């Protein structure tokens, strides 16, 4: 199957929002290549006539009545937040300068 390069790992880490050190990129590049070689075997038996299973017990459209239930207070929700102003989560700038 396909060889995974350092650039691939860096691109994937960017998509996954994980900063990596150079050493981590190096080790992940070789580990992921070996892992992907091993798991790519799934395509050997996955014929076009086999349906996919996403979920072991098929259930669909599990709904409840549209009524207000018990909810957490803002205080409870913000208790675990790194930063907040009592009404909203506080974060640093959403947009960088180039945007």
């Amino acid at each position: 199957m396909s060889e995974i390069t350092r650039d691939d790992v860096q691109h994937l880490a960017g998509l996954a929002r994980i900063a990596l050190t150079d050493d981590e990129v190096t080790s992940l590049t070789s580990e992921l290549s070996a892992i992907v070689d091993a798991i790519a075997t799934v395509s050997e038996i996955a014929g076009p006539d086999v349906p996919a299973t996403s979920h072991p017990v098929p259930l669909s459209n599990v709904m409840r009545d549209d009524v207000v239930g018990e909810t957490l207070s803002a205080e409870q929700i913000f208790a675990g937040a790194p930063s907040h102003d009592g009404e909203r989560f506080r974060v640093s700038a959403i947009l960088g300068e180039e945007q």
Partner: protein
Amino acid sequence: MEQAQSGDLTRLAGHELAALLRSGEVSSVEATQAHLDRIAEVDGDVHAFLHVNEAALEQARAIDERRAAGEELHELAGAPVAIKDVLCTVGMPSTAGSRILEGWIPPYDATVVARLGHAGLVALGKTNMDEFAMGSSTEHSAYGPTRNPWDLERIPGGSGGGSAAAVAAFEAPFALGSDTGGSIRQPAAVTGTVGMKPTYGGVSRYGAIALASSLDQVGPVTRTVLDSALIHDVIGGHDPLDSTSLEREWPSFAAAAREGASRGDLAGVRVGVVKELDSEGIAADVQARFQETVRVLTDAGAEVVEVSCPSFAYSVAAYYLILPAEASSNLARFDSVRFGLRVEQAGQTVEDVMAATREVGFGTEVKRRIILGTYALSAGYYDAYYGSAQKVRTLIQRDFDAAFEQADILISPAAPTTAFKLSEKLDDPLAMYVNDITTIPANLAGIPGMGLPMGLGDDGLPVGLQLLAPMFEDERLYRAGAAIEALLAQRWGGILATKAPELAGGAR
């Protein structure tokens, strides 16, 4: 069951301790204190717990007062229980073994935790685990490994090594685990204890920090089959807060376990040996114990047949595509905004802060799997990897369907080897992944599975048996599991868990 020495409440099976609590011979405060003392004595060596509940004695006292006032309580009320750190607990940190959730105290209880509380069980604390349940050895915990009480140089299995070790080291009679690819059954196998992965949807996942949502299932970890059944009866059943929770009436699993144990034989039970799980890759001593167990079942009247599940050869590959794919999505919630760690420098955008936080907060295995999952889901690879893995899942379900036409339950070794040494497989992720071959098929198919002891390997360490039943037939596992446990206990003169060597710190 082995008779406890006087005053040693920690050696009792959970149901035996609960009987003493009901009769008033022992108070919940005494039972809880005995286990807290045991934790203080041995957990420095074992490191099963990440957090010990400071309110445990207070909660035990409240149960004692309610009992003294004549209130009708649940049959397990007042008994202590250990809780895997993947489960949200109000008043106790819930970290899932990760630095990114260090010190985080959830605003709500997992449904299973709330149900234990309503039944009056007393939480002893939170048990160690591989970070976000990614691992088979508990070495991937950000807070250091748990050690196997049978040999402190060995792994206790994973990801729920903390719960299994706590129960095996007599630090708790009951514990909760979660099983995504074997994280309840494999630790049970290597610590000489019992663990049950229920049918998918049988136990609520609400408040269980998600690893792979189509695979995760919460279940009991104990030293006896009946004890697992008792806990399953408490935590199981429909939960409107979990949209994958099954709306069905479940039978009493404790009744099934009691019936299985008292019947004393397996007459008429069709037992299928899965050919593909009894082959190369299984250590010779594990195979030997397995063959002996098959003979015990045959002598007890079981009709043993061989069944073939050819797609199982692809189960590890399918699992290590589906799990990372789901995990990469589930773990996106750890974004430094709403809970947990934030690593930030002035002038950074929120995106930079997220990447820096996840760099520091996640361990190596978590990063590896998130990036693998991101790869498996990326355009161009999706059909070949994730799509194919989902098809393998269908084929594995079909294999099980065919096997269960020939057999009522299936059996296999629960793990390919006895507990390996700490660090032995830490630098070889593939070797660690392949170790899950015996347990993964049940998660992919959603069926129930149980791990229970079947003897000792050449190294004197526990070897586990796995029982599997069709979807919704958890009851069969308790009935057969309790019968097998009773048959083996007759040969051994007591259950295996009581044969563990005494821990150095635990001299009595």
